[in-house]
């Protein structure tokens, strides 16, 4: 076994894991916020996430076709795309809530779950239908901006690209903004109140339905931002590519303690790092007997272990505030 190699790639794997972790964290927020207020798993969130990526790519392609992609300064383009993706995903999330979940709010707990799964499949094929009519293709490529592909070669095995810095920066910005909204504003207080006790919140004069819509809007917007960053980082999207990251992000949300906002961030990071290290090191450490394909097994095994010793997730009991 090549020890030098093992140590040499360590920082790079760490960086890969952090990027992936922030991506999961952003998506996980959508699951965890909805769970906080409604106590149900919004399975359609993975499509809300990928919808943001699609709106982002459409905006980019639109800018490209009118020749503005290289004309505008790149940070402005990025902000524009992010805002468009967030707005679209947020609105989609609100619509889904209104159409598919609200009518079922009085129904037994698992009924909306099935509705969510149905919506998830429906949206996948709907996105595909629209895109294949519009572009006659549904594997879409993010147009690259040259600045983003610049790399800083720190050593022979370590590279940092502008793109990954943008992704990390964007994710941190989103998480910070969310933190402010939930903890420092009236709306945030209302969200936490509804999560704590809907009946009491409505007695206090909070419009519960409005707050629930708002929660979907914020969670959806976070998903949309994640979608855009996902597209920027990995380059290729299709209507079905949101499902697996969605599932992983949901796992991350549970790992951190579902319903708990800081938990989702921690869970996302832990899961991202776990996956990156498992994929990179398993094959090297076992001499090829077990390879990268076991990363999910490792991630899930550790999840099971953590939940056995901390059945409420990593931060499930430490932090009491919920949203």
């Amino acid at each position, binding site marked *: 076994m090549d020890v030098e190699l093992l140590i040499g*790639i360590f920082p790079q794997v760490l960086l890969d*894991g952090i990027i992936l972790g922030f991506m999961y964290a952003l998506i996980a927020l959508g699951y965890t916020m909805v769970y906080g207020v409604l106590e149900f798993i919004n399975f359609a969130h993975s499509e809300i996430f990928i919808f943001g990526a699609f709106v982002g790519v459409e905006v980019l392609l639109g800018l490209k076709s009118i020749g503005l992609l290289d004309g505008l300064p790149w940070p402005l383009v990025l902000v524009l795309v992010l805002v468009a993706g967030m707005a679209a995903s947020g609105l989609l999330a609100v619509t889904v809530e209104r159409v598919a979940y609200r009518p079922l709010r009085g129904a037994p707990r698992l009924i909306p779950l099935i509705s969510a799964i149905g919506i998830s499949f429906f949206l996948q094929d709907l996105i595909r239908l629209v895109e294949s009519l519009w572009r006659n293709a549904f594997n879409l490529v993010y147009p690259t901006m040259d600045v983003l592909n610049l790399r800083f070669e720190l050593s022979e095995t370590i590279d940092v*690209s502008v793109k990954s810095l943008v992704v990390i920066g964007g994710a941190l910005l989103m998480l910070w903004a969310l933190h402010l909204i939930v903890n420092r504003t009236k709306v945030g207080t209302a969200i936490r109140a509804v999560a704590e006790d809907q009946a009491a919140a409505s007695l206090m004069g909070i419009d519960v339905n409005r707050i629930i819509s708002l929660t979907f809007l914020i969670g959806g917007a976070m998903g949309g931002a994640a979608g855009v960053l*996902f597209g920027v980082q990995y*380059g*290729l999207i*299709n209507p079905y*590519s949101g499902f697996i990251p969605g599932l992983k992000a949901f796992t991350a949300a549970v790992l951190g303690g579902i319903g708990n906002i800081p938990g989702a961030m921690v869970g996302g990071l832990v899961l991202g790092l776990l996956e990156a290290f498992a994929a990179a090191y398993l*094959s090297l450490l076992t001499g090829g007997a077990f*390879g990268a394909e076991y990363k999910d097994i490792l991630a899930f095994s550790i999840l099971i272990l953590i939940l056995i010793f901390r059945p409420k997730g990593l931060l499930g009991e430490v932090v009491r505030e919920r949203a």
Partner: protein
Amino acid sequence: MIRHRGYLVLALVAILAVALLPAANLDAQGKGTIKIATQSPLSGGQAALGEGIKLGAQLAVEKFKGTLEKQGFKVELVPFDDQAKPDVGVANAKNIIADKDILTVIGHLNSGVAIPSSEVYKEVSLAMISPANTNPVVTDRGYPNVNRVCGRDDVQGVVGSEFAHATMKAKSVYIVHDKTPYGQGVAEFFKADAEKKGIKILGFEGTEEKSNFDPIVTPMKAKNPDVIYFGGIYDQAAPFFKQSREKGVKGKFFGPDGMDSSDLTKIAGKAVVGMYYTSAAGPASELPRAKAFVEEFKKKFGKNPEPYAAEAYDAATIALKGIEAAAKGGKMPSREDVATAVRKTKLPNGITGDIEFDGKGDRKKALYFVLQVASDDPGKWGNNKIVKQLAIAAPAAPVAPKK
């Protein structure tokens, strides 16, 4: 309660009304219709390839149905969605054999669906021509009705390693595959043969990941292989190659016929310029018939053909020729006759070369081109140059994959 009942009844009536029409329609059409079915995933993650198969077959049927229509038959294509799921594929297969007008099946994409479904076709000797199932087992069972126009993993993998050894002069290779029967199969045969030829295997990794290849690329880059072989399909390979180059991987890229799509350059851009791939379908630039096919396909459907669309086109052409041969005299042929005729059909100058089946339904001689990607412009995919041609006959006896 009553309100709900009402809805339920209403829904049932609606479903029945909807279903009534096909009944009337299906029963109305009797003799004189010849149907060719396609089975491939038309929804879900593999829909792009599955649709390519359907469209390729559709193009051929529309183009060549004239002879049969002159004899008074009506020729139709019936697409089925197998959802890449074996249970759905088998149910569809039963549905297909129940429709006596269906005389051939073009399909499937996944060997996992093709194998159980072909057991069903065999019950009634319904000819199946596969455009994409490269798993050796598909034909090694020796069924008289099962044929394929695509190559076999054990052939293509060997073609690849031969080229890597002799032409690319590779000393070391890193192999990544997509954990599907196709990708892993071809990668394993490549690996086994490369080892025999003395090429050093620096890594052999499988991944179901579609977008984030960072953790795989990092150790690969550190090992610095001469050649990186990806056993899989372009939609996964392209982001992998792109991310590899972006991270500074220097080795040459190489892959099987799953790479043969203009979308490879559309997604990966400059990263794949100069890379090699093996394919049974010749490039449009050097083969006029391939050029005509690509142009017709583009004109009709507004996009470049996916991998296996050319194979599906050839498969459907053979199906029609087989049916024509069996329908000599203008009589509706039986399925057994069609199956026998299909096995005997020869198609010189198919898009994927001269096609002729051996006793098992494999191609007698699989011609493989090694091509090099010429440009990062997807529109110029047809300009890819042939670097080498290799013709290898399918193994006569089943070859067990190396463990």
